[in-house]
């Protein structure tokens, strides 16, 4: 369950961001998780719910953007997206490649700060 360590780092980083932004409550946190990052999304959500209690993230929504693996295919001369993570070869021409261009992300992308109650309701109204 290394997801617990990762969720703790996320909360730490977000709290730092909130402090330097002058405080506030967090409405949502967006993470970018590569297919090769070895992070299990359910375990991460479970861990996030544990570690965010009594922090400005207590009611934050966790958004996870999954990034597929992209490799460089020398034969095709371009980047290609892999359908899975079990064969590091070009899906078009079959050439093996260890030149990974995406898929290892473990990134905190953005933090959405909530406004005051009225603003939050208004914002919700706009989104829905």
């Amino acid at each position, binding site marked *: *369950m*290394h997801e617990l*360590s*990762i969720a703790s*780092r*996320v909360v730490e*980083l977000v709290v730092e*961001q909130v402090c330097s*932004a002058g405080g*506030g409550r967090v*409405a949502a946190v967006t*993470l970018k998780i590569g297919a*090769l*990052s*070895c*992070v299990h999304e359910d375990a991460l959500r479970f861990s996030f719910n544990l570690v965010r209690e009594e922090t400005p993230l207590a009611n934050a929504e966790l958004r996870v953007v999954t990034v597929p693996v992209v490799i460089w295919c020398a034969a095709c001369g371009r980047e290609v997206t892999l359908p899975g*993570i*079990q*064969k*590091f*070869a070009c899906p078009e021409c079959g050439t*093996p*490649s*260890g*030149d*990974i*261009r*995406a*898929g*290892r*992300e*473990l*990134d*905190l*992308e*953005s*933090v*959405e*700060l*909530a*406004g*005051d109650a*009225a*603003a*939050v309701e208004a*914002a919700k109204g706009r989104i829905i």
Partner: protein
Amino acid sequence: MIEPRILEVRTKILKKNDELAREMRERFVRAGVLVVNMVSSPGTGKTAFLKQALARLLARGEPCAAVVGDLETDNDARRLAESGAPVRQIMTHGLCHLEADMVEKHLEGWDIASLRYLFIENVGNLVCPTSWDLGESVRLALLSVTEGEDKPLKYPGLFNTADVAAITKIDLAAACEFDRAKALVNIEAVRPGMRVFETSAKTGAGLDAWLAYLAERRRALVDGTPPPPRRSV
């Protein structure tokens, strides 16, 4: 009235670990010590393999040391210390992987520059250690013949982030009906071009080839030759 707003952060979640690991790697390289991070499932034979490697290096007059991560016991450290090398145990108390600061703390007081090789035996786990850079120059993934040939396909992340692989316990290959060709194909599928050593801690098979590889990597490190492409994106 406070408006909701979005802070674009775009930072690595493990930034702190990555930064410390980078600093440690620079320190190790400057000191001329090759650091190897060993990852595998529990029971693959990391300790047995490492004990042999330490003993052989010492017999050749090559100073080396090890730190070993384990959930609760110091058994592995005691086993490794029988080789004669300095060894320290990192007890993680339930944490399923080592992090850079734990390694750094356990190196305190050691004269790193007096070493040529430093080995880090990670906690036995096929998933969790992969995301944590420990400042190593070489990451070794181990797979034993008793685990089945499809481990690399089941845990591609671990093999894909490794620089080199070892198949361990090959003395048991026949008894386990280990399909060597299939294992090699699977490793190649998830990490094209990775070198694989076939070893036995019991018979000593493959150990000299492994140590020759380490010597080559260390020479390149001391000469300042850039290392082969690594896992970082």
